């Protein structure tokens, strides 16, 4: 910092001698000041809040409940036989299988074990997850409306299958604000290859755009345009920002426009982000045993490194950390494909939960694992290498921490895992419950747009009290 101190002593205060704010703001660069990111919520949580933040692990593509957490051993008798029409009912099918002719049951080829004291069913391919079976709450009867990926993820994130509504993280940023003035309240991390993950999924919709999720890039600058251009040193960047703000301060005095003050703040925060984000993203600072427990390979972007980043961001006070792991859309070859996916999430997810627990953070961090829908009991016969099609009517998700009752199985599906028979949790219920755990009544958190008070849960949603501790 000596170059910086040197600069401070010899710099002239030209252009800001008369401006209190500019000078004060300068000294604020490395300390905290009211953040423009936290304008609406100002970092508050309701006293009733059980959770302070969310880490949402979204398995993009729709993991099969039949290959993960909802085994149906009785299906082997049905293997290759048509799924009874009374089970299908009047549910819609995608056009990928609606013209397939026969909808024959495919029993899972995997083995399952009862895990933890609660006896939670898990595919034995999960080698680590059983260790935390008693920490999580398995929701067997999750259900949603859309049947295609794009509308289904949009629905899960925003409460509507059509684009244009704010996503969950944006609602929380709007309602609760940020607790770290150097970071956005809502951050998105991405791993794997597969279904496209468009920016709509973390869009602010009609909410002010500062509530938009900021996607941290896995290569290049973690935040867009975070690095200075070639030849612009950190210190010189600071000097130039000071100059910009000196001019802006003069303009503010002349015009009286309060937006200019916000802009001065924004430039200072930009500089603080330049200083703080690269360190936050630098996993090499973590001890070797931590890296190993997550399965992080240094320098390699992966779901594992994103899980570790999620913990670091959670520690740093980020409100909503959304991970997308792609590649769960198994229309063919599901029996083999699921091995790779389970292997890639098993260790990091387990490590994340244990890590949060050890640090005493799990109680106030709501962790959610799941996809946008489930998969069909019947086989999709594309490429003769059987897979499963999209199935919105029932799927498995789990939640942990942040006010969730640990070691619990909630909900029940029929013998085919095709319909929910007990305690269905609709996506709107899930959203209402998440908001509730963060201390927000989902019917209260509204925004007036186009003459209507909009909310995340539209006009639906009931809180699932049974899964709360």
């Amino acid at each position: 910092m000596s170059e910086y101190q040197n600069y401070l002593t010899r710099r002239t205060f030209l252009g800001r001698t008369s401006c209190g704010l500019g000078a004060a703001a300068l000294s604020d660069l490395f300390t905290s000041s009211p953040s423009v990111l936290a304008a609406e919520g100002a970092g508050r949580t309701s006293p009733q809040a059980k959770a302070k933040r969310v880490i949402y692990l979204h398995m993009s593509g729709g993991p099969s409940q039949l290959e993960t957490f909802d085994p149906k051993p009785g299906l082997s008798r049905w293997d290759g036989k048509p799924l009874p029409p009374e089970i299908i009912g009047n549910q819609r099918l995608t056009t990928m299988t609606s013209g397939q002719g026969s909808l024959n049951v495919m029993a899972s080829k995997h083995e399952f074990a009862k895990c933890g004291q609660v006896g939670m069913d898990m595919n034995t391919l999960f080698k680590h997850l059983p260790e935390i079976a008693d920490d999580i709450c398995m929701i067997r009867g999750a259900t949603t409306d859309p049947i295609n990926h794009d509308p289904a993820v949009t629905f899960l994130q925003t409460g509507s299958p059509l684009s244009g509504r704010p996503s969950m993280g944006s609602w929380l940023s709007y309602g609760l604000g940020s607790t770290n003035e150097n970071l956005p309240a809502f951050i998105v991390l991405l791993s794997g290859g597969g279904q496209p993950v468009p920016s709509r999924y973390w869009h602010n919709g009609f909410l002010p755009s500062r509530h938009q999720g900021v996607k941290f890039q896995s290569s290049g600058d973690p935040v867009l345009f975070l690095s200075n251009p070639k030849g612009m040193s950190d210190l010189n960047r600071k000097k130039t920002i000071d100059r910009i703000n000196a001019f802006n301060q003069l303009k503010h005095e002349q015009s009286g426009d309060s937006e200019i003050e916000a802009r001065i703040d924004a430039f200072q925060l930009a500089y603080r982000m330049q200083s703080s984000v690269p360190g936050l993203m630098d996993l090499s600072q973590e001890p070797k045993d931590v890296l190993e427990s997550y399965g992080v390979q240094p320098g390699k972007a992966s779901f594992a490194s994103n899980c570790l980043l999620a913990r670091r961001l959670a520690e740093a006070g980020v409100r909503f950390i959304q991970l997308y792991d792609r590649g769960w859309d198994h229309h063919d070859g599901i029996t083999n494909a699921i091995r790779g996916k389970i292997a890639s999430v098993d260790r990091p997810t387990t490590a994340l939960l244990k890590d949060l627990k050890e640090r005493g953070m799990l109680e106030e961090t709501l962790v959610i694992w799941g996809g946008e829908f489930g998969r069909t009991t019947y086989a999709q016969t594309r490429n003769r290498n059987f897979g499963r099609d999209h199935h919105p009517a029932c799927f498995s998700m789990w939640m942990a921490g942040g006010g969730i009752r640990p070691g619990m199985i909630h909900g029940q599906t029929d013998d085919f895992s095709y319909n929910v028979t007990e305690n269905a949790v609709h996506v709107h219920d899930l959203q209402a419950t998440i908001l509730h755990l963060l201390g927000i009544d989902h019917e209260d958190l509204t925004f007036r747009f186009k003459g209507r008070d909009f909310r995340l849960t539209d006009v639906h949603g009931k809180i699932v009290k049974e899964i709360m501790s």
Partner: protein
Amino acid sequence: MSSLRTRFVLNTASACLILSAIPAAGDFNRDIQPLLAEHCYACHGPDSKTRKSGLRFDIREAATGELKSGSRAIVPGNLEESEMIHRIFSEDPDEMMPPPEFRKSLTKEDRAKLRRWVQDGAEYELHWSFRAIEKPKVPAVNKEDWARNPIDHFILSQLERYKMEPSPEASPETLIRRISLDLRGLPPDLNELRRFAPFLEVPLAERANTNTSFSPKQYSDLVDTMINSAHYGERMAQDWLDLARYGDTNGYHNDSVRAMWLYRDYVIDSFNSNKPYDRFIVENMAGDLLPDASDTTRVASGFNRCVTFNEEGGADPDEFYVTYAVDRANTTGQVFLGLTVGCAQCHDHKYDPISQKEYYQLYAFFNSVEGEIGAGGRSGYHNKPLPPLLKVRTGPHQQKRNDIQSLLESRTAQLKAARERPEFTNPSGELAPALSEWVTSLTLPETEVLPVKNGLQLHLDAGSFDAPGGLVREWPDLSGNNRNAVATGEPKQFGRALNGYPAIRLDGKKDFLRTQSGAEHLGGDFTMVVVLQFNDLARHQMALMWGDESQGKRRAFWKTEGQTQHDKNKLSFNGYGADMIGNADLKRAVPVVAIITQQGANNDTRFRLNGKDGGGGGVSLSNFQNKAITIGANNAGAEKTAADFAEVLVYDRALDTNEQAALGFYLGTKYKIDGEWNPAPDDIMALAAKPGRERSESEQKKLFSYFVNYVHPESRDLFRKLESGVASSRQELEQVDKSLPTTMVMVEMKTRKPAHVLMRGDFRQPGEEVEPDVPAIFPRLPNNQPRNRLGLAYWLTDPSHPLVSRVIVNRLWKQLFGNGLVKTLGDFGTQGERPSHPELLDWLAADFVEHGWNIKRLQKLIISSSTYRQSSTNRKRYENQDPDNRFLCRAPRFRLSAEEIRDSALSISGLLNPSIGGPSVFPYQPANYLSSIGKGWKESEGESLYRRGLYTFWRRTMLYPSFQIFDAPSREFCSVNRPRTNTPLQALVTLNDPAFVEAARVFAQRVLSWKEESDYQRLRLAFMMATSRAPNDREIHILTDTLSEQREEFKTHPERASEFIKNGKSVPAPDYNPIELAAWTSLGSILLNLDETISRE
């Protein structure tokens, strides 16, 4: 939790408080209706499904009528008997209204208002925006001399009512910048500043003695200059494209590219030509259905095709046909009616008088698009065009096509004339002797001697010599040119190798032969002939070649080994698979006679295998000089042939068919190879065999026709030349037509698709069938027009329509004042905000329609007002009274749009490429930005990197990053109003995005190019270019300091200087010292980052 709720309400409602604080008695629309809508309509409103107790408050008859219980909610003038009054004042949770669980309780003031209203007789009025527009009288004002036009009267009269003073006029340089940004989206350039504000050259200190105000003529010239600029259309289009949800991709899932930019260009042109807005609406809504429909109006109909498209595999087309029609109905509501009709998709509108049935009547105008694809279906629908499409001959295309067309016509005429020449049509004319000579020659030739010797360059015959011990060292040339081929490896002569005849066997491993010279004579035309049999067909095998393959200049005949079964074992000429000739498969150990000819400027190549035509083509070969001819290998000596060679002949001209036939027949006979050796088709041969006098006239004609077409060199060559001219023109024409840009347009089905009310908006639950119609609250559709989009368009543009003109003038007002007179630009319904100046809004709307929906005229009128010309400086004394400046006692100050911020930087630096229209471009974007949707970004090159933001490729699922950060909408759906936020991510863009860093450097170069100027003057001018005004002393001081600080920085770190000036694709000008350039670049960057540079004030 209640505190949380209160806060949200305050956030959105603070502006309303100001307006509702305006005291005046008994205005139903302003005071009562919003209360009923907010607190009562949800259960007692237009929606019949959720209506409780059969009571509704939106209609007076119902609200005052007798209820089932026998009581009446409202008894006008009678508070005691009005159940409503009883209920709203009740504190009993079972009785009180609204019920506690509704969470929207009435305030004390609200209750008092309702009480007074009932007491006064509970009079209803039609919601203000549904009422017909009557042009209001222009109000009188005290301060007459302030007002320049009627607009000022409306504004001033309200200000005077609240004892507020308008602001003084903004400085001329501020106005120049304001008008330039408002109308062109670009700041004024230095020349414009100097032209309209010459006093800027005068130092501020001496300014007091200079006349700095505009004369009316000067001001009018200024406005005209800006409004008539071609950049005006671009600025106007930017807002319209948000409404039209224009994008360059499909917007769902894979987000494939679509071609839609012709619509964007149509919008720009329309605004530039000041198309009357009513006509613009008709073209957008129904350009395809107009009686005088043209390409232009059809392109315009693309407005309704800008909807997104779901290409995802498995998506149900039926679901999305509905989605698109719904989007069209909603967009029509938003853009033209300023109504949220979409609320009635699932149920009757809760607040506005639009029933669900009426919604689907509106929807019914939009669900019958001929050829529209609903969704991806089973396997998805990626990267394919979405019909209906229109190919459009744009100006440049049409010109090019005309040129080719006329060339084609003249070439066709020439060919026709040539064919009709008397000597080529009359069998007994001057060619009669030649014909008869040829007919005679058609009797097959002698087989003992080589029949064609003219042009023979090389002739190798395996039977012409004896190799001692079989080992061939040299293969003697019989052509008389002494080009004996020298052997490499150990080729052997076998006496009975090929059908029992002598041949030279090459082993395919090391053997080949090469002449000492030979190719220098083989320029354009040639013939190569080989008699051989392959002994192995495993690989590429070069039989005969000359030229230089390392430069792609070779003439060669070889066996291919293609990728597919089809390509295997074929013969090729001059290339790998691409120049493959014919369909005949080679077989091992089967002898062949292969003849290849090439002829003429078009390199017409013909191939003949065992006499049978094997096709041909035009293989372009440039000049080359290579002296050797290689037999059995390429000229590098690789790719050797495992074959028996019996005979090789090379001619320096193309043999004609007759000669080829003769030669083929000679060789075929010599080696007993079966083939089609006839020199002409069988029917011609048969005619030739007939004695002349036995031929009928038509037979003679047929024979002659064949002769002139294929045999007689003069006519044959002439026809070929002319034919190939015609063919190439045709090809070019096809090419041009293929490259015509297409755009998505509307085409109406012949028979309209039935439309149904969809229960809960679900496409699987169709209810009652409905006809296209408009909601009952409005005037009826015109009788004399079809009941389709065209009729709807005429309905919208009827001068008496209460909403359309109000909505557009409000948007035009917003463009110039940052806010609409109605702040909720897309909601003129009962939940929308009431206008701040209702009479002004109506006056503007009426005036606009009276003057032919003339947009430029209206804008000029507004810009000429004193209201517009006010300074934007915030005055503390009015801050509490009017925090949002709704009374307009000053001009607004606001941040520029995403595109304008980019355009300004480019324009100030001089980097901007000002060309208008054309396909979208791909400026700098961080690498891998699109990886989460699996897409790349093929960056544009050169000047295309510096187009206006409007032309940036609009990828809807991942918008261009700096635009997204500066609040541009994704345009997946209609957006009526962009937010304007202020975030650190924006600071990072203008500081670090290469587009801005490069602009700063080019800006610096521009400043440094004023060689004769002092630093002081350069700083002054640079500041002026960025902010359109001269810096004051304090600012000059900071500028000077900054410059020396930056010089110091880069002098201390020269390596940083040379790096810093290399940001961006353009090359830094070499004329400047890198340290100096870097320091000025830094200064330029600071100027481009100023709040003032990215604001309009």
